């Protein structure tokens, strides 16, 4: 069995709308963290949403495989139960639903069984400690009235508690000050290990100083046009995307 998240020639469009992904090929082996960079409108966030099963998009060609198994026919919740996780660029506010209660329901849904209060609380404690956060965030309503930074940090907390096999972090770094960025990176690094793979979607090289990726891919106009190591991110930071765009045209 393949131990990887594989995106194979993926084409997707907004339901009844414009094509966004135009043949994405990407493999994230379990145990590695890959970054996807690219200019605005390249399709990076769409890639994350399509992997997670956002019903606002439809796949027109290609496949997504988790450990060798296609997940295209699965709903978003079934994908989560297969071990996928998407940290949202814009986490959604759900008033009246407490953060911790929701997270416990989600963990139970994922496992398909009751999770004891003790076990759940221990997981929360561990995540809060890593993220240097206090418990008051647990009883607040899910993302309701959270600051931008709190929302992002909360996504990482959810990830740490739900322990996905493959996580997609959609611009989790954007809008964060340096202290918050370091905490988010600390959370992701705490997940690192042989049973965790991640796709880090970002505009900026900055977060890669704290989460050193195993590979960097550059996306332009719905395709991955070049890939490399961490040095590629540095090059983009210095030179911008123009040379990659030319590369894309040349292809």
């Amino acid at each position, binding site marked *: 069995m393949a131990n990887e998240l594989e995106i194979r020639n993926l084409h997707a469009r907004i339901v009844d709308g414009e094509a966004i992904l135009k043949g994405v090929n990407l493999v994230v082996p379990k145990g590695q963290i890959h970054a996807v960079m690219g200019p605005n409108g390249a399709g990076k966030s769409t890639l994350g949403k399509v992997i997670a099963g956002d019903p606002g998009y439809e796949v027109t060609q290609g496949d997504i495989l988790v450990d060798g198994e296609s997940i295209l026919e699965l*709903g978003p919740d079934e994908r989560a139960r297969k071990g996928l996780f998407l940290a949202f660029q814009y986490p959604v506010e759900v008033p009246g*639903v407490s953060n911790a209660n929701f997270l416990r329901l989600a963990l139970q849904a994922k496992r398909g069984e009751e999770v004891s209060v003790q076990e759940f609380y221990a997981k929360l404690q561990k995540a809060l400690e890593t993220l240097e956060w206090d418990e008051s965030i647990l009883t607040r309503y899910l993302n309701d009235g959270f600051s931008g930074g709190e929302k992002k940090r909360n996504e990482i907390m959810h990830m740490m508690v739900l322990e996905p096999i493959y996580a997609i972090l959609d611009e989790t770094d954007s809008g964060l000050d340096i202290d918050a960025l370091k905490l988010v990176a600390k959370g992701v690094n705490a997940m690192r290990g042989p049973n965790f793979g991640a796709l880090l979607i970002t505009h900026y090289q900055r977060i890669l100083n704290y989460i050193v990726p195993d590979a960097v891919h550059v996306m332009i106009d719905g395709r991955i046009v070049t890939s490399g190591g961490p040095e590629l991110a540095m090059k983009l930071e210095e030179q911008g995307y123009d040379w990659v765009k030319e590369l894309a045209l040349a292809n």
Partner: protein
Amino acid sequence: MSENFLVEDIGNEYKYGFVDEVQPVWKAEKGLSRRVVEAISYHKEEPAWMLQFRLKALEIYQAKPVPTWGADLSGLNMDEIYFYAKPTEKRDAQSWDEVPEAIRRTYERLGIPEAERRVLAGVGAQYDSEMVYHQVREELKRQGVIFVSIEEGLKHYEDLFREYFATVVPPEDNKYAALNSAVWSGGSFVYVPKGVKVELPLQAYFRVNTAELGQFERTLIIVDEGAEVHYIEGCTAPVYTTDSFHSGVIEIVVNQGARSRYTTIQNWPHNMYNLVTQRAIVKKDAYHMWLDGNLGSKVTMKYPSSYLVEEGARSDILSIAFANTGQHQDAGGKLIFAASHTGGSIVSKSISKGSGRSSYRGLIKVYEGAKHVKVNVECDALLINEESRTDTYPYMEIEDDTATVGHEATVSRLNDEQIFYLQSRGLPEDEAAALIVRGFIEPVAKELPLEYAVELNRLIELEMEGSVG
């Protein structure tokens, strides 16, 4: 979390829809007439003044037209209704052993005796037209708390009864208050003496078993100075293909410095017309809360009201309505300010699913000369499906310009982004939708006693099954 009760159509799988093999010991002939009213009075062995009161109310009822400003009542045919059914000879048994077995089993199925042992201060159980059981904890009796059926209240405490009865809701108030005044049967008589705090709730449970029956409970609650009480009513019935009718009148007097709360969890089956008048008179520095949950029935028209008649009186009305396909919940509340430095709020949360319709109908009235009244109204409607419907009718009559009045209304649809977000964490779509709905009503639901909050959540989950996708 809801594996036992996942059903697509609540109307077919309504948990409380079972029918008992119980025949009334006596049942009035179908339809409404002077003879029926006299028969009811005769069966209750009432004083002459009460029969006169009933007959006068019947005339008022007959003179008033069917209201057309609210829900559609054209399907309600009074000629097809039984106005009285006596389930057993013994009223107000003080022990469940004295309740006929078939009826007792029903209340056991509904979990009432168990709740009574664990979390309630007293229970009254009405079956068809009569209260078959009424009991309150001994220590409360010793403190002078009265919690009996309305009939026993009239029989044993006639002076107190007569001082307050029909003073809060007179028969002239509206057509169905007049009807109730003519044919009332069952309900509770509650008196909490000065300074006595009843810490656990008193609960009345209303069950209609006989098909095509009208149930006309009449409840009178007097909370004397500085006293406290929480009264809860719950309602269920079997599912019949014919319509049933429930028309109650609730009168509450909250004396100086007292605190009271009246909670309704109305879960009638979808063949019930539910037209209820509930009103509280709130006196100096007293407080009253209405918590009104309307989940069942075919048509509900119900607007709990508080009259703030002396300085410092306050009242909050919290309302939850859930209208599924075939249901119209026309609910809301009224706050009438007739004294200075009074205040209150109405918070209404309605959910419409399928082709269900919920209407918020509310009145805020501030009389001239009532100074520095503060009132706030918030009504939020959530629509689950494309064909779901909601309407808002907020009436404001503000005669004094020192009043501070706030009003906010929102209508929202079940949000796809929220569903996707919750699903992406592993929750199935139905559960995600139910969770969003639970979150929507949370500001009201958190005021419920825990047992009822759990039950409400369960009912909502049940109602939300198969609602999206």
